[in-house]
């Protein structure tokens, strides 16, 4: 069987914060449509890796590739444009704009990309519906539960129909059942859309939603076999 071509690539990626090394030479491939979990203990560099892959951080050394192009050498403006058009990003919390309703929050990335107001709202409502929170369209984040907010944030991350969704501990602040509902929606929609997902988590149960696990340890991908690296499903 031939391997599918990698959509995302890291080659020998090194990144430090001052004198503290976070990534010490990470090499990995992620195929299009794959859902991978990046796991490891706190401080192992998994979030830094996600930020580098998403073009938010620039590595000190090494290369980041996306669809065959090296993106770490691009300008901040070019990487920002890439994030707006091709990538979606979902964090643990604090992503929704408090003053805006759910529909306005979800429509925001489309408005920033130049979509007309009416079309953006229609798309936002459709995505809120897919995430099971259509009834919250005119509700502000402060009036929602954590799980509802995270479903809206997921809708906002997916509304531009990104090719890759980067999610950093997306259910870390939610109780087990709510987290599971958010993940269930996220994984279902990602599979329907054939969206690649890079999911950072320290929780084996969350990693269970992924096709494959990339275990990290001390700033590198754990190739020793001690980690939880599984095969693609």
């Amino acid at each position, binding site marked *: 069987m031939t391997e599918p071509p990698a959509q995302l690539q890291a080659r020998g990626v090194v990144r430090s914060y001052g004198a503290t090394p976070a990534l010490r030479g990470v090499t990995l491939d992620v195929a299009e449509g794959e859902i991978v979990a990046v796991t490891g203990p706190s401080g192992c560099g998994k979030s830094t890796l996600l930020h580098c892959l998403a073009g938010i951080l620039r590595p000190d050394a090494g290369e980041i590739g996306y669809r065959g192009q090296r993106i770490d050498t691009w300008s901040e403006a070019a990487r920002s444009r890439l994030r707006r058009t091709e990538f979606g990003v979902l964090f643990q919390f604090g992503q929704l704009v408090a003053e805006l309703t759910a529909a306005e929050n979800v429509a925001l990335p489309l408005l920033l990309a130049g979509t007309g107001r009416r079309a953006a709202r229609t798309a936002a409502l459709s995505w809120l519906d897919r995430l099971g929170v259509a009834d919250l369209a005119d509700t502000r984040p402060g009036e929602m539960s954590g799980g509802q907010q995270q479903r809206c944030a997921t809708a906002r991350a997916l509304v531009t129909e990104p090719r890759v969704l980067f999610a950093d501990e997306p259910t870390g602040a939610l109780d087990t059942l709510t987290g599971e509902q958010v993940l*269930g929606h996220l*994984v*279902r929609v990602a599979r329907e859309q054939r969206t690649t997902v890079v999911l950072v988590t320290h*929780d*084996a*149960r969350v*990693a*269970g*939603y*992924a096709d494959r*696990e990339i275990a990290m340890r001390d700033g590198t991908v754990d190739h020793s*076999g*001690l980690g*939880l690296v*599984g095969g693609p*499903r």
Partner: protein
Amino acid sequence: MTPERVDTAIHSVNSGLVSSSHVLLGLLAVGAMHGYDLKRAYDNRLPQAKPLGYGQVYATLGRLSRDGLVTPAGQDRDAGPDRTSYAITPAGRAALDEWLAAVEPPAPHVASTLLNKVMVALLVADVDRARRYLTAQRRAHTDRLRELTALKIAPGARLDDVIAADYAIAHLDADLRWLQTTLDRVADWHREVRA
């Protein structure tokens, strides 16, 4: 029989019954069934459990009948030979109630093949071999966790399946955390010994 003697008898019956017997008793509490349907109902309700053989079902029904917890409730003549239906008795309901009310001791004795194997591996094998075993075991656990998660989120998954998968996932997760801690401990210990 006096109420006290009934209680004692039920308690003694309960302590002699394995939990699959109580599950069969619980299924009969919903309605009378013959052994074949009972086995199917058991498999249906507990799809992730160790499968119950027909022989085991009939033997359990025999014991429950002997102890007065179930009673024959007619023959199903159309469905072939040995199709005696069984119904739960009042004593059976009391035994079931007692079992349901009794709190399970939270792991009074730490015993599992997994733990035993790790202990023996550390005792007789070198560190690298023990680590290889731990690693392979961890991989197997993770693969199973992924399978169960897929089963749980499959469209149309039944509540029974989801609850059983949750239970298995929670235990696998606990094992995985313990395996990781053990791997870290073995690595630390190895470093100290070599230092």
